[in-house]
């Protein structure tokens, strides 16, 4: 199991709803993949209402990270391997 604190992330949105992050990712990124909850990214199982969008911008992936008390954050993290996995549909 991964730990988000081990990632070098940038927070793009804080305390947002799933509708807000869906709209944000789809509006700001041309390359977007939709995955199901439980999809592993950086060894984290994604939490969310299906489908969950993940954006790609250069070598960075943009994805939602949800906690029970703090809602959802949209994080930007560098990850070529994760981008390859998304593009290959694995």
């Amino acid at each position, binding site marked *: 199991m991964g730990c988000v604190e081990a990632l070098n992330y940038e927070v793009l949105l804080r305390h947002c*709803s799933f509708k807000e992050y869906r709209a944000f990712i789809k509006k700001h990124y041309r390359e977007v993949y939709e995955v199901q909850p439980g999809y592993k990214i950086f060894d984290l199982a994604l939490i969310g*209402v299906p489908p969950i969008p993940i954006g790609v911008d250069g070598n960075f992936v943009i994805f939602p990270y949800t906690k029970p008390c703090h809602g959802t954050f949209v994080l930007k993290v560098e990850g070529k391997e994760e981008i390859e996995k998304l593009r290959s549909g694995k």
Partner: protein
Amino acid sequence: MEISDEKRKEGLIILGCPEAPAQVSLAVHLAHGLRRSGYAPVVAGNPSARQLLAMADPEHHYIGEMLDLERCIEEISTDERDYDLSFVLVHRESGVSYAGTVSVVSAGRVVAVVFGKEAEALASLIDFDCETVVAPAVHNPMPLKKAIDRVMKWDV
């Protein structure tokens, strides 16, 4: 993952943010109902939510095994473990996200228990395959108890 019927059935209770006054009573009630129905209750939540519940039931007469929330979701999503029945407690928008997640990763029955001041608005966000119990309970848990008992047939 197939849910084995060789061992005792397991029922999962996923706690939300611990700030809701009704959550501890609700979790104990669900654990009690699960035990009466033949399930071994397992509770998952963040550390504060688990500690509040453990303080209310220190010898685990009702609540059974307790798990870290992220670990629990990880185990279900990687097919290491699954539950015959899961309750997801929803009193914030994040709870809808957890219900959506469990509805996808678990092969068992999933019931979202939606409560608190915003219960109706939160329930309207549930557009995925999931049973719901909805009651705007904040301090008085009885409407919620009745709604759960009716859906689970624990009132017969």
